[in-house]
């Protein structure tokens, strides 16, 4: 294949793009060709030995795959799409990546620059459309602008609070000639992604923590994004502080650790929700007080002093006012904090969490993982899957009841092992995100846990699995309902099940059509063996488990309630 003496040679804009990606050490691209991006695909043809391109079945599949790729690898996901519908099909995933701080570089083809604004074939103002959901975006109309735009794109996507960026390249820019030269972007004068941590604030925070009786750590996605897991563990252990995790923070703190007290939020654990309103110092690290965590903010941790570690200044005081705000990278901040922290023991305070856990176990968990019902319950499936995989799988979920059940019952041994759509709650995310995760981590078990609803939103990506031989495992919890909405209809809409019942196809037959082996089970006695079979399969495998139709996820903090009003049944 092509070996380019790439510097000081005249190349097309399209080739300059490919060379720029190589200079950014990109290995994998998820995409879908079309008219306005054809020159780029043509240039890619010469570099197939250096860049792996995964042909998806819908652009939404490409963007979610790139998200999954990024979330497990920490590297930016790269997406190609054509103009117009190709570009608009990316928007949901871009919005998802923006709200969940996922670095992506999206390259879209655009009509030739002389056609811009003329309603040309497949012309859409994708820069305008993606503006509210990108960290940064740009339209490039000249070949020589491509390499600098890509350099900026990678720098912006991956620094500070990461996020998606989009580079829209007109067809004439792709065809145009330029001398290729690549300079990595190392700074932008109007952008300060790496705040210097204020040591005085660290001292104040340490003093507050050292004098606290009932401190409580909330661990968010920022801990994973800054690779601060060890720092967090050292801090929590030294000061003997219980740690709870947000949905996106899961897998940052070892779940079997005595200081780990569970998962926060609407369907989180009993203890951490209740204790939020009993602690005296709330230490939020890399989290943004999402409403699914706080519920009613006017009744949220009013008794506590709040210390907020955060890299994005606009998150500070956005929802919960911080008594002490530490602006900066979580890892650096915790490194500075640790020497200021006194070694302590807080037996009594921790006991409170243990008691809550016992209550939750008795009232919720026991029956969920070992039910008396005839039909299988979602929690026992996930619990079994956790035990058999020993907590080592990379688990990718879709959105809904199965997602909450997975977050509650799968205990992740390693960081970045849960990939889920948190902020946006995008149904259809799971399957393509799992494809991306498997591409990034081919040697790990990647299991997509899906509901019957979300699976069908991007079911066409089974084609991507087939074409590129991606050994993703698919675990479908089928309750023949849009379960989470049905649960709300049951609890808050007088059991009026308005359009939540699903008539589902034969999933196993569909998978078979794509050459994917599968199995459907309905009985408890078959569960263990089926999970083994799924995990042991060398190729992609689908396991459909038919579960209780009207199972509910508990505990639950109802909308408008306080976190301490969490209900167990």
């Amino acid at each position, binding site marked *: 294949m092509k070996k380019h003496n790439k510097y000081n040679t005249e190349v097309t804009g399209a080739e300059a793009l490919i060379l720029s990606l190589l200079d950014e050490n990109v290995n994998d691209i998820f995409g879908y060709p079309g008219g306005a991006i054809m020159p780029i695909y043509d240039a890619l043809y010469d570099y197939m030995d250096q860049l792996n391109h995964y042909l998806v079945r819908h652009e939404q599949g490409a963007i979610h795959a790139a998200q999954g790729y990024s979330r497990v690898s920490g590297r930016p996901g790269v997406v190609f799409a054509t103009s117009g519908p190709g570009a608009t099909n990316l928007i949901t995933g871009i919005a998802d990546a923006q709200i969940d701080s996922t670095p992506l570089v999206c390259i879209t083809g655009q009509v030739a620059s002389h056609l811009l604004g003329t309603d040309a074939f497949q012309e859409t103002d994708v820069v305008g459309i993606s503006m509210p959901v990108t960290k940064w975006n740009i*339209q490039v109309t000249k070949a020589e602008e491509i390499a600098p735009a890509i350099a900026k794109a990678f720098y912006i996507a991956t620094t500070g609070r990461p996020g998606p960026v989009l580079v829209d390249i007109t067809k004439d820019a792709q065809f145009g000639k330029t001398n290729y030269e690549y300079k990595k972007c190392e*700074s932008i*004068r*109007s952008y*300060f992604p790496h*705040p210097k941590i204020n040591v005085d604030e660290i001292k104040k925070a340490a003093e507050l923590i050292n004098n606290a009786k009932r401190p409580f750590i909330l661990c968010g996605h920022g801990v994973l994004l800054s690779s601060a897991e060890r720092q967090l563990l050292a801090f929590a252990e030294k000061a003997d502080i219980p740690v709870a995790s947000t949905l996106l923070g899961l897998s940052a703190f070892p779940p079997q650790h005595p200081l780990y007290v569970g998962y926060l939020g609407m369907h989180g654990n009993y203890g951490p929700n209740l204790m939020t309103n009993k602690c005296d110092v709330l230490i939020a690290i890399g989290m943004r007080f999402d409403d699914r965590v706080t519920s009613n903010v006017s009744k949220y941790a009013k008794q506590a002093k709040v210390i907020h570690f955060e890299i994005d200044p*606009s998150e500070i005081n956005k929802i919960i006012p911080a008594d002490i705000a530490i*602006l900066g990278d979580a890892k650096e901040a915790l490194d500075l904090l640790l020497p200021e922290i006194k070694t302590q023991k807080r037996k009594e305070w921790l006991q409170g969490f243990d008691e809550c856990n016992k209550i939750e176990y008795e009232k919720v968990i026991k029956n969920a993982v070992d039910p008396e019902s005839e039909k299988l319950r979602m929690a026992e499936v996930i619990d079994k899957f956790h035990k058999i995989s020993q907590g080592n799988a990379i688990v990718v979920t879709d959105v809904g009841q199965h997602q909450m059940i997975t977050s509650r019952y799968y205990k992740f041994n390693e960081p970045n092992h849960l990939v889920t759509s948190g902020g946006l709650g995008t149904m259809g995310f799971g399957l393509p995100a799992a494809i991306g995760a498997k591409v990034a981590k081919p040697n790990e078990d990647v299991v997509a846990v899906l509901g019957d609803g979300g699976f069908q939103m991007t079911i066409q990506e089974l084609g991507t699995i087939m074409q590129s031989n991606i050994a993703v495992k698919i675990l479908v919890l089928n309750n023949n309902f849009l379960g989470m909405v049905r649960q709300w209809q049951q609890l808050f809409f007088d059991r009026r099940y308005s359009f939540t019942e699903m008539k589902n196809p034969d999933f196993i037959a569909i998978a078979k059509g794509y050459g994917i082996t599968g199995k459907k089970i309905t009985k408890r006695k078959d569960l263990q063996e089926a999970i083994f079979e799924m995990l042991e399969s060398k190729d992609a495998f689908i396991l459909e488990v038919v579960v209780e139709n009207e199972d509910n996820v508990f505990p639950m903090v109802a909308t408008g309630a306080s976190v301490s009003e969490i209900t167990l049944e």
Partner: protein
Amino acid sequence: MNTTYTISIFTEDRIGLLNRITIIFTRQHINIQSITASESEVKGIYRYTIVVTITKEMVEKLVKQIDKQIEVLKAFYHVNEEIISREIALFKISSEALNQNELFTKVVNENYAKIVSVSADYIVVEKTGDENEILSLFNSLEKFGMLEYARSGKVAITKPMKTLTTFLKEIENNSKTNIKHFNK
């Protein structure tokens, strides 16, 4: 409590950036009362002046969101006491006003306005001042036969602020060393 704030935003010269900024207002359902944009005293750096009437809490969050945009150098907000601001208005008055020439000239002079164009059908009066001064002149001129009226957005100079060039040097040093914070 709602207060009128003048937001000054210094930006790079980039297509679409104004759109990116106004989206932040739209998203939070905040109406822009007036907006002006022009190049600042430093070549290539643009200054937007946007007026809104919202709570202090809202303006603080809004300005942080604006500041977060990659190509925004810095955004500030100020209350009226902290700025010197002006608007310009043009009034097209029917030339019948000249039938009451003495009274008309008196109104123009007393309001520190000036006549910038006279033709057979109309007279154009220009007034620079704050919103109230302009509205007051509007009321006085209306009886002479108002044919057209156009008012600019507010332009503002802040009283307590570093010069843009010092400020630019600071942020340029900061972005090189990759350090975020500087004090305004």
